[in-house]
């Protein structure tokens, strides 16, 4: 199946814009989501100013932010702070990390790793990117509508989200409604993608590539796709219900007799605010694993390649990931311990939460054990993958006090929670994803990224990631609620103001630390060192294709002869043993 099956030469638009090629779509996803990541992070850099120096004008950008975010002096408004917070969360999760991990890496790497010429449904693939793009544009447009962007948090709890952002005569054209519409688009995009992924993985594997010969990354994508497939629709349903509440004045989430600002609300009543929370967290807990599993998959690939030995306990890892995926549907109400839960339900949910921590521990342990008797190459992707391990460990461990309902009483909705999930998602997932960019960049462009700039990117990022997030544990333990525009209203907040400032300076440092990466990412595409098809001396099938792979991927359809991580096999000619090369040629 070679690339010159295509007699016609597609034009620029169909080649690079509305392309059906999974590789182009993967790159589109990657670049778009990296831009969204940086944008979402910038919102946080603005918020960190208000937290560190409450009530002082924002330097540099304060004058540009517009009347919905800042006052005349350039001081962030409380509602502007809430808008930025809600949009930061939404953008980072739904427009940044998931599209990068699944849309970007999944799309580009997964078909190559299974030896497929493309995804099973190329048109659907293109559609899912453009629906995602439309969702992103819709989301961003909400910054410019009257009243500003959604400001009820990324969790959008009603009744607040039902009554928020209803300004003047604009029933549709307001932040929260646009947020809901954008979410519906993003969910649709993820659903299309997940169907495509599952069919591709099940049907398009090359000969010899059994399920237990799949690279770990493919397994991670497989489980992730099921999470997306089954967890997202309830949020879509919830979104539709909230849209009806906002647009048609229904009261699914509104109980009877609310009085807002002294005005009795007119509607039929009889709704339940907790209904939204159930539907939301039914998605949003599996969503955590959607964020983390592809990252674990990437870390597994990089570690196997750079330790020059097979991943420890490959099957254990696979079973753990499957179990993790399954259990992630059964723990959601641990986000709701404080909504009036009795003993039976809290016991159920904290028990399942403790159970789900076990496969996480197993995965981490297996990855750590893979280092034993290895021959570790400290390449740039490896540095990112290695840094993932301890930081993910912190993120995972700090989940324990939140998962036990009794300690959650004190820590719920404090900065401790923020510290916890950011350790999982930012120093954890994002570091792994950045490692993935360095790792597969040569495959995409045929050139390596600069190692020097890579180090300049890695070390400050590693230090600042911890500077930003570690202090949050102290702030949270001290009892400071999250989402406060000015935590110095409380004496607890004043006491920890030093930690808060440290966090803020860390965030700005982290922003600066991304500059070498941005330079590296764009310049290496034409100035990087040219490399051959398999620069890391790796074993999985994507390295059997030329770099960059042509349309149709493989010059010759590969056959898989063995498992994915046959490194340092005794008696082999070289220390790696690619999946597609028969035994006769390597031993």
């Amino acid at each position: 199946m070679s690339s010159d099956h295509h007699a016609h030469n597609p034009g620029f638009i169909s080649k690079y814009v509305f392309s059906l090629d999974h590789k182009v779509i993967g790159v589109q996803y990657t670049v778009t989501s990296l831009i969204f990541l940086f944008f979402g992070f910038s919102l946080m850099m603005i918020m960190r100013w208000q937290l560190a120096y409450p009530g002082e004008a924002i330097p540099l950008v304060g004058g540009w932010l517009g009347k919905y975010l800042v006052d005349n002096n350039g001081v962030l408004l409380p509602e502007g702070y809430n808008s930025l917070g809600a949009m930061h969360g939404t953008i980072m999760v739904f427009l940044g990390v998931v599209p990068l991990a699944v849309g970007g890496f999944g799309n580009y790497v997964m078909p190559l790793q299974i030896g497929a010429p493309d995804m099973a449904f190329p048109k659907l693939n293109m559609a899912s990117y453009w629906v995602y793009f439309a969702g992103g544009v819709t989301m961003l447009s909400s910054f410019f509508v009257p009243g500003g962007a959604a400001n009820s948090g990324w969790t959008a709890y009603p009744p607040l989200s039902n009554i928020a952002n209803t300004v003047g005569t604009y029933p549709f054209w307001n932040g929260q409604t646009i947020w809901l519409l954008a979410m519906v688009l993003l969910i649709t995009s993820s659903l299309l993608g997940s169907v495509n992924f599952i069919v591709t993985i099940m049907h398009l594997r090359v000969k010899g590539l059994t399920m237990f010969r799949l690279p770990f990354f493919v397994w991670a994508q497989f489980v992730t796709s099921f999470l997306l497939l089954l967890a997202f629709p309830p949020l879509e349903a919830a979104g539709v219900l909230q849209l009806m509440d906002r647009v048609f004045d229904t009261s699914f989430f509104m109980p009877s007799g609310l009085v807002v600002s002294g005005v009795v609300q007119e509607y039929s009543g009889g709704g339940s605010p907790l209904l939204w929370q159930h539907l939301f967290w039914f998605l949003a807990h599996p969503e955590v694993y959607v964020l983390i599993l592809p990252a674990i998959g990437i870390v597994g690939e990089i570690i196997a390649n750079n330790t020059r030995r097979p991943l420890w306990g490959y099957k254990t890892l696979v079973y753990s990931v499957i179990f993790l995926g399954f259990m992630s549907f059964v723990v959601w109400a641990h986000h709701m311990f404080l909504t009036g839960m009795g003993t039976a339900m809290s016991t159920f949910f904290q028990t399942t939460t403790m159970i789900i921590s076990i496969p996480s521990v197993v995965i981490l342990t297996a990855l750590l054990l893979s280092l034993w008797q290895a021959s570790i190459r400290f390449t740039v992707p490896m540095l990112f993958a290695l840094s993932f391990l301890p930081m993910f460990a912190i993120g995972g461990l700090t989940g324990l006090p939140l998962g036990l309902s009794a300690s959650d009483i004190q820590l719920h909705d404090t900065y401790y929670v923020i510290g916890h999930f950011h350790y999982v998602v930012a120093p954890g997932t994002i570091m792994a994803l950045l490692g993935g960019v360095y790792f597969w960049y040569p495959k995409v462009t045929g050139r390596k990224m600069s190692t020097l700039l890579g180090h300049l990117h890695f070390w400050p990022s590693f230090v600042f990631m911890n500077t930003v997030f570690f202090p949050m544990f102290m702030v949270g333990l001290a009892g400071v609620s999250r989402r406060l525009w000015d935590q110095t209203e409380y004496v607890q907040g004043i006491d920890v103001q030093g930690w808060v400032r440290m966090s803020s300076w860390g965030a700005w440092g982290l922003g600066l630390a991304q500059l070498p990466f941005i330079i590296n990412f764009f310049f290496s595409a034409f100035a990087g060192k040219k490399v051959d098809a398999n620069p890391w001396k790796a074993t999985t099938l994507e390295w059997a294709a030329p770099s960059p792979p042509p349309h149709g991927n493989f010059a010759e359809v590969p056959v898989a002869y063995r498992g994915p991580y046959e490194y340092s096999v005794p008696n082999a000619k070289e220390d790696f043993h690619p999946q597609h090369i028969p035994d006769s040629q390597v031993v």
Partner: protein
Amino acid sequence: MIASSFWLPPDISEHGSQIDIIIKYLHWFMAILFVAWGSYFLYCLVRFRAGANPKATYGDAKAKPSKVAEIVVIVIEAALLVGFSIPVWAYYRSEPPTNADNPLTVRVVAQQFAWNIHYPGKDGVFGKTRPELVDEALNPIGLVDASEDPAAGDDYVSVNIFHAPKGRDILVRLSSKDVIHSFAVPLLRVKQDAVPGMEIPIWFKAEKTNEEAQEMMKRAFELPASAEGAEAERFIKENRLRVTMADYGSVPKGATLNAEHLKTLIAAGTTSVELAPGFPVNIQCAQLCGLGHYRMKGQMKIYEPEDFEAWYSSAGEVEVFDEDEFDDE
């Protein structure tokens, strides 16, 4: 001292120590686990770097230590779960005090952005409320007239200040007028979402009065070298919620330190003062509830039981608490 209690604020409640124990045990467990993993991790990075170990070994390393580690993790998690967390929840969240315990029962009605504390008065019965009667200034919870419901006659509503006795069960029936709030009192280890449409019960017992809590939280602060300039301004700003705990002549005990005070103190050669929060037991809103979420602050005032009775029998109608104007110390 702070670090030894894991940065937690002082605990003045009866049940708080049990929550703190879980938090502390867990953090020790996490720290030990992390250090163990971390040292193994660092050892591997050094010992098995490509320079020192050019040839990796094929095949699985022995997994015994990992199995032991996993079993230890499972056992400790199970112990914390079964031994601590579930019982604490079962007792403090599912078994409300009975009449025999003689609890003080109050309703707390959250709203954007204030806490309304509704006392039943001497008859111990809450008057009816109706949403259409709500008047933000005069009748924040919409209490009916005594002619409609006699029980409402002696009811009393306090806005943003929660008067409570020490050493007696306090049963709060928590609800909300508009959106979801969360009633959080860090010093009492209490937190519960206030969900509109539901009246969720929580209960706790304070074991310290405000003054005793203040004693626990007092701390010496070094005064800045000069009473002028940015450092002095920041000192005042960052200590605006604290009062002096001793008489410093020009600054009497219980006064909030201001720029004028600072000037006279520095002039008199004082280098440090003992300060504590004027209202140590504050109520925060822990659930995003709108633009005023950050300033939805209430205060608890915990009295000796007899002082509480004295206050309770003399309480008026609606009392609105504004911290900046409050001056009863």
